């Protein structure tokens, strides 16, 4: 086995990662990125701590995914498992929302709001804070492992761990009452799944945000591939205007021969600030998350050398072509609205409107009736016929409610249940259904001897100001020989 041979092979198939040491930059897009980062991180960390008063029978956490009790709370909305289509609807809206954003402003999700981007950005700031800016980090990377480097790395990685733990710790707060869980967590009394989830998310946060970073976007994430298919000539992308920049040359060369060189002075600042380490001048590529930091960097250089801004800029490919052909540049906002964007907007908002409508018309009281099948009917000593049913009264409100069950379409029939005797049988029974629960009641329905097999209904009515109503269809069975004598 020869080492040189194998290395020839492996170098053909695998390119090892070139660590990205992106340089600090300031500018409008960087400030926007700061704002989005502050907003998204605040939403993520603060949401579980928001309180929302739902009365004594339901948790007071504003957003809570209560897996143990199978309830999903989101401010004034409470969702039961069978209403999960609302969550599915939200996910569909999120999906189409991404399409909408992509068709309007390109890969803005990747550039500003994706958790991978936000946390990578956060970790890169930690790098900058501990190890200094780009050049200092490159030097430190190349330096041999000594005491100083070891200590620095240990310090930095422990900050990574703290951030990771904070992230994983915040995640589990969405699944239980946050103050209680924090208390239990530190006393070692929380559920094992809480510790496992927090540990797994701590690790994934540190590994994905601290170490893998842009490789997640470039190699692992399906979304850039989908977006690549969705972008067209009318989509906003971050572009290097090559007709203006080429041929590249240093400031000195360009001063000597102004006609030969374009605006790009090949200062490499756009590459230095890029968080994914690409060269935007090579054209649109999967590694470009359109965070626009290169625009900030290039604009700054252009201002310093007295050339107009926007050598690298947000533009559509169509606009670039028109501009290259000598037409005046079109304002960016005009690129936002085109037929596809409007179509997505309509689909997205109609799903939203449909869900709002459905939310407003939800019935929080339902009833099902399951007949006893063995035996299906029962002849009583007075000749009347009894059927038994298991009624399930569902109260989806967070307070106990009085509910009335009435027999409909079954002449002469009365019902009773295990808590009252047959002498008290009536056509209507009232139950108190506990808050947020399902009450199962075995009800006996007795009908006169001459009753035929027929369909009838149990009607449920909530005896409160909501006055909700619903019905459950049921069948009354009688002995086959009922028509004859016996």
């Amino acid at each position, binding site marked *: 086995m020869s080492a040189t*041979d*194998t290395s*020839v092979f492996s170098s053909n198939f695998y390119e090892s990662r070139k660590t990205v040491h992106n340089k600090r930059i300031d500018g409008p897009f960087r400030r926007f990125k700061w704002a989005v980062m502050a907003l998204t991180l605040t939403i993520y960390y603060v949401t579980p701590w928001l309180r929302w008063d739902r009365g004594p029978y339901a948790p007071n956490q504003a957003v809570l995914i209560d897996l143990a009790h199978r309830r999903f709370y989101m401010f004034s909305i409470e969702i039961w498992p069978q209403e999960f289509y609302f969550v599915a609807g939200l996910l569909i809206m999120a999906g189409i929302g991404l399409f909408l954003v992509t068709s309007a402003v390109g890969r803005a999700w990747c550039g500003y709001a994706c958790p991978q981007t936000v946390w990578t950005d956060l970790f890169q700031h930690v790098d900058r804070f501990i190890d200094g800016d780009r050049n200092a980090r490159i030097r430190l990377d190349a330096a041999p492992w000594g005491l100083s480097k070891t200590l620095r790395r240990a310090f930095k990685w422990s900050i990574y761990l703290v951030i990771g733990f904070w992230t994983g710790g915040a995640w589990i707060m969405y699944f239980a009452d946050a103050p209680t869980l924090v208390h239990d967590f530190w006393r070692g009394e929380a559920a094992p799944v809480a510790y496992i989830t927090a540990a797994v998310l701590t690790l994934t946060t540190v590994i994905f945000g601290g170490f893998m970073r842009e490789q997640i976007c470039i190699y692992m994430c399906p979304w850039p591939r989908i977006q690549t298919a969705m972008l067209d000539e009318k989509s906003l992308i971050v572009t290097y205007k090559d007709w203006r920049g080429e041929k590249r040359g240093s400031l000195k060369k360009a001063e000597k021969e102004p006609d030969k060189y374009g605006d790009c002075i090949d200062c490499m600042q756009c590459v230095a600030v890029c968080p994914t380490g690409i060269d935007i001048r090579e054209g649109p590529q999967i590694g470009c998350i359109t965070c626009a930091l290169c625009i900030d960097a290039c604009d700054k250089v252009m201002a310093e050398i007295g050339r107009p801004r926007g050598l690298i800029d947000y533009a559509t490919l169509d606009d670039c072509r028109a501009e290259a052909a000598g037409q005046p540049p079109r304002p960016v906002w005009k690129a936002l609205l085109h037929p596809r964007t409007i179509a997505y907007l309509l689909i997205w908002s109609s799903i939203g409107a449909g869900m709002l409508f459905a939310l407003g018309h939800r019935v929080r009281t339902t009833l099902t009736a399951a007949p006893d099948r*063995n*035996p299906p009917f029962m002849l009583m*000593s007075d000749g009347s016929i*009894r059927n038994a049913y298991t009624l399930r009264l569902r109260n989806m409100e967070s307070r106990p409610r009085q509910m009335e069950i009435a027999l409909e379409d079954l002449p002469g029939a009365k019902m009773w249940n*295990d808590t009252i005797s047959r002498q008290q049988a009536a056509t209507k029974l009232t139950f108190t259904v506990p808050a947020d629960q399902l009450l199962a009641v075995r009800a006996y329905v007795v009908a006169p*001897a001459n009753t035929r097999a027929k369909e009838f209904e149990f009607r449920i009515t909530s005896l409160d100001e909501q006055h909700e109503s619903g019905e459950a269809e049921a069948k009354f069975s009688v002995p086959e020989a009922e028509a004859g004598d*016996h």
Partner: protein
Amino acid sequence: MANKRIDQPTGTETVGHEWDGIEELDTPLPRWWLWTFYLCILFALGYAIAYPAWPMLNGGTPGLLGWTSRGQLAKDMSVADQAHTSMREQLAMIPIERLADNSELMKQSIIGGRAAFRVNCSQCHGSGAAGSQTLGYPNLNDDDWLWGGDIKAIETTLFHGIRQHGDDQTRQSAMPPFDGVFKPGQLDALSAHVLSLSGKAKANPEGAALFEQNCMSCHGMNGEGGRNVGAPRLNDAIWLYGGTAADIQRQVQNPRMGEMPAWGGKLDPVTIKMLAAYVHSLGGGENFVEAAKDPAKQTNVSH
């Protein structure tokens, strides 16, 4: 034939065969795979020593740990029993008349009773406890009770059985056979009168007279029956052995009288309590206090 050589680009040996210029590399198995394989072999050896493994002429090797599937089952069963201990202890203490006061214990008894019913009672009474008219097994869901339908009476019937020799508290009654006593015309008149008691035939004076002479002492003036003597009601809609005139005549001439085992000798008292609670819960159970006052009246209330 074998023409092994080292493949230059990979540094791996070939298997030595060549087909139309195509050779195959003899790439060794990965180390981790081999080690996993060896570990599996070690595990299997240990397993065969610790657990029953090798078939012998009589049985098999028992294994050092002494594990058996029967032992495992016995252990699981005792764990399940342990889980029920507190419930069974409570149930053993509580008099059955007071069981209804403890709704949680009642609920558990009904669940336990349902399971015991499936095992011990469903063979005759059916899995839904609906009985069988053809075979003469009574329906336990309805409100017609020959021996009493309160929870205490049901427990007594379960414990001592029906018409069991050697149990002095067993439910006992006997209908005398009237075979050859009545003339055919008299039989028709009698059965017509019996049917008229529940409004299924016109009044029959001849039959009424015969009834008064022969039947009234046990079944009562209006056929209301009597639980103290185990005489069934004849004025309701429920007939254990059939409710046609022919059925009634057959029962008069050659009466069928069912038996039920005395479960007191077969099941423990707690299980019998659970069975009584279950049967009582099927929809026809009578209230204990009221039934104690006047059992005959209780059945009339529902009319």
